């Protein structure tokens, strides 16, 4: 048989064609690790953090910058932030290069049902480029439904959940646990569709540049 026939007939595990769209993360260590070379679009990505301020937003800044500064003539250009725990500070976002006019903040009423309803509505509308949501509790059924909706509409969906939930089962295609020690961000990939679990270390994740002299 010809070599070309072999190539088409043999399934090569790692290099299986990932035809899913991706958004480059902006960190080359992570890009190399993730299948497709970036955040997967059209599936749910779960990010687990112990506390806020460990660099969870800084991890997304390059991707957000890429998404919000696309050509204005194209539709689907805004990002929804659903139930953010604090105020996303506009001057800081601008410093990272994001067009803040493309961001929408949604504060659902108390109760995780309304939060999940809001996420589902935004994802299903098909008009947003991405959704960032802070979800304390969600069950597998709802997540599966969200994932189907995201796949249908091709929406970049990120859910931030407390680290205690990382042991639960979930249909999300990418699940990462983020911690930071000193300046180094540690991204532990718990589950990755089309790739292997592992740990990626990102140097100087999200810290402002400045002298590190301790002030008395």
């Amino acid at each position: 048989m010809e070599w070309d026939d072999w190539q088409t007939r043999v399934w090569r595990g790692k290099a299986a064609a990932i035809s899913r769209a991706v958004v480059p993360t902006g960190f080359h260590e992570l890009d190399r690790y993730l299948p497709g070379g970036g955040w997967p679009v059209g599936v749910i990505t779960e990010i687990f953090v112990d506390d806020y301020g460990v660099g969870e937003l800084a991890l997304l800044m390059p991707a957000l910058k890429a998404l919000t500064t696309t050509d204005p003539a194209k539709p689907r250009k805004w990002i929804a932030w659903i139930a953010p725990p604090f105020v996303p500070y506009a001057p800081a976002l601008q410093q990272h290069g994001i067009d803040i006019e493309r961001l929408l903040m949604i504060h659902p009423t108390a109760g995780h049902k309304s939060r999940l309803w809001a996420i589902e509505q935004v994802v299903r509308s098909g008009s947003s480029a991405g959704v960032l949501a802070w979800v304390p509790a969600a069950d597998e059924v709802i997540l599966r439904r969200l994932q189907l909706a995201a796949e249908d509409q091709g929406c970049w969906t990120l859910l931030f959940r407390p680290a205690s939930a990382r042991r639960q089962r979930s249909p999300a295609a990418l699940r990462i646990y983020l911690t930071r020690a000193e300046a180094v961000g540690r991204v532990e990939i718990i589950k990755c569709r089309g790739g292997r679990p592992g740990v990626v270390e990102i140097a100087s994740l999200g810290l402002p540049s400045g002298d590190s002299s301790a002030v008395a």
Partner: protein
Amino acid sequence: MPRRSQSLELFAPPPLVTPSVEPLAARSRPQLWLAVCLPSLALECLSIPRGPRPAVVVDSQQGQPFVVAANRAAADAGIAFGCKLGTATALAASLQVFERAPRLELASLESLARWALGLTSLVNVEPAEGVLLEVAGSLKLFGTLEAIKAKLCHELARRGLGFCMCVAPTPTAAVWLARAASADALRRHELAGRLGALPLGVTRWPPEVQELLKCLGMRTIGDCARLPRDGFARRVGSAYLLELDRAFGRRVELRAEYRAPSAWSARVELFDESVDSALFMEAVEQLLDELIAELRKQQAQIDRLEIAFEHLHRPPTIESFVLLEPTHERERLLHLIGDRLQRSVLPVPAVALRVRSDALLPLALRESDLFEAKPHDELVRVLFERLRERFGTEAVYGLSAVAEHRPERAWAKSFELTARQMRGERQLSQNQARPLWLLTEPIALPSIAARRAALRLCSGPERIESGWWDEHDVGRDYYTAKNALGQSLWVFRDHRTRGWFLHGFFG
């Protein structure tokens, strides 16, 4: 003698000016008016069920009550327009007597006029009489006059109104010919002959004027028209001479255009009182269809809507909807109302629903891409409305940067989601790091000793002193700090209180 003539002169009436015939300016297009007269409107608008019993409608406003309209049974008994009530009751034994309702008559005429706006744009309502349509402009669209008349006949039959219709070049002539139930007069040169043959009664001039003309020997309109103009004006009145001029087309006649009112309201009664939201949705859909038809006819859109649930023995429950942008689309309104109805629970069963819209705004058309399935903006708008509807208008907003030194004021919520303006931003230099998360209120950190153990200050201080001109004066030294958990914090030390506060996280 001279004195008497003097006294006569003192009290002499002002000199009479006979109105002269003005030459008609050449018009771009000759008009053609279709008059629809509804002789028994007073009876039909009351929705009296048809039956063998004679029924009359009386008008008791001017002096003695007299009959305005009578149904077939009453007419057979000999009761006619103008009969006194006593005569009528004497003629028919089991007579039903109804009071005239001018408001209902006007409402029914206006409803017909609103429908007729679909045939032509110039409609005039003649109170207690009928409706006038200017159809010369619509002939091209509908083809022939017969087509317009057929549509009109169909609609009038559907509404159960008896009518007489006639077409003439001037409105007054059309009305007179319709009252006499005669055939159309399509050309101006026919008018003189056709109007001339009509009896004087069709003009509906006051009885004393008609009496005077009868005494003078005038029986038809043609007779009046042949009289000398100044004599007619002096004896009868110049107003009637003007009316004759207008009818014959010698004088321009303008009729007030009927404009549909800019508010809309409709009501539906439920069969039985209920709290079932599915039933409400059905009723609302029905009313919405009417509203959408009305909006389409008037080329209008709405941005607020009110649904009132009427209860027995209680004031109605009102649900108001305010839309982000005006709309005339059925789906959007249905989604909005459906969401609200599903979530709301009525305290008491409702017996009727009324949908009301206050302001009908003119339609502003948007250009959209021909090949796009549904315009993107529309999807966004629908989504925003649903979210605002459920969570409140304050819960959905965009961000904007403000040129301010004080960090908590350097950002603002932006509720104008479709048209956003930048309110000016300061360019921050690179060594002025700002945290991605800002706390709405700074949190006081525990005492300095504890702070030193937990936090390690990395950079700073950045001094911000501002706001002496309003009450929110701040004097702070900002530092970035790290703690053992890997968090990066933005803390400051207040000058006045000498306390340490946490203001944000470098997320």
